[in-house]
């Protein structure tokens, strides 16, 4: 399901991008997904699904832009708690 919204960008930016309106729409969609994924609002797998891509293709697009995945523990305290919990799994 899609919803139509209009976004204003400068003519200069449109010219500089060299993209057609359709390509710009696609790029915009992808950039929003990259941002939401990096903010942790949606998972990688969900981002790929919303981009109508397989996860590997989505990651390829992500890395093409030299973006780094964000993730894992948010602080040393959280990292240490997780580390200690994992130690309990050792046989």
């Amino acid at each position, binding site marked *: 399901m899609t919803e139509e919204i209009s976004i204003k960008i400068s003519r200069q930016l449109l010219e500089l991008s060299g993209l057609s309106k359709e390509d710009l729409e696609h790029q915009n969609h992808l950039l929003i997904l990259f941002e939401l994924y990096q903010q942790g609002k949606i*998972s990688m797998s*969900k981002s790929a699904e919303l981009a109508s891509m397989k996860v590997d293709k989505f990651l390829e697009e992500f890395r093409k832009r030299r973006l780094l995945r964000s*993730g894992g523990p948010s602080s040393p305290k959280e*990292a240490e708690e*997780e580390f200690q*919990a994992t*130690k309990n*799994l*050792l046989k």
Partner: protein
Amino acid sequence: MLILDTSVLSTFTYLGLLEELRQLNITYAITPDVLEEFSKKWVKTKIPSWINIDTPSDKIKIESLSMSTTDTSLISLAIEKKSMIATDDLAPRKIAKDRDIAVVGTLGLLKLLYTQNIIQTREIYLNYLEKLRTDLYLSDDLLEWAIKDID
């Protein structure tokens, strides 16, 4: 049991450390959805036989706009098996923690490999950390934690 998601499984494959995970002597599992995602990305890598493929039953239904069916399959399996999840992905981490499911990421497992002497030298460990940083953002604080209290 530790249930691996695609992000952690792929990162350990990228680091060339999948076999080393086995040496931790932990029981590992993935869901069929994770297997499918992984196999599309790593066509030449077969999932080792020591990683169990477990399908969650239909009893536990998790729904979230922020996650795909692959992510929800992990959470369902973790609840069902009362297990821990290994993921770096922030959205499933948050949902797992809200449900009191223990979580670990690549960094924690990497440090465990070193502290258990499976990665044998500090230099090699630091090289893996550097390689990890080319794929996953690590803050200075987390990097400091990763090398704290190690010889």
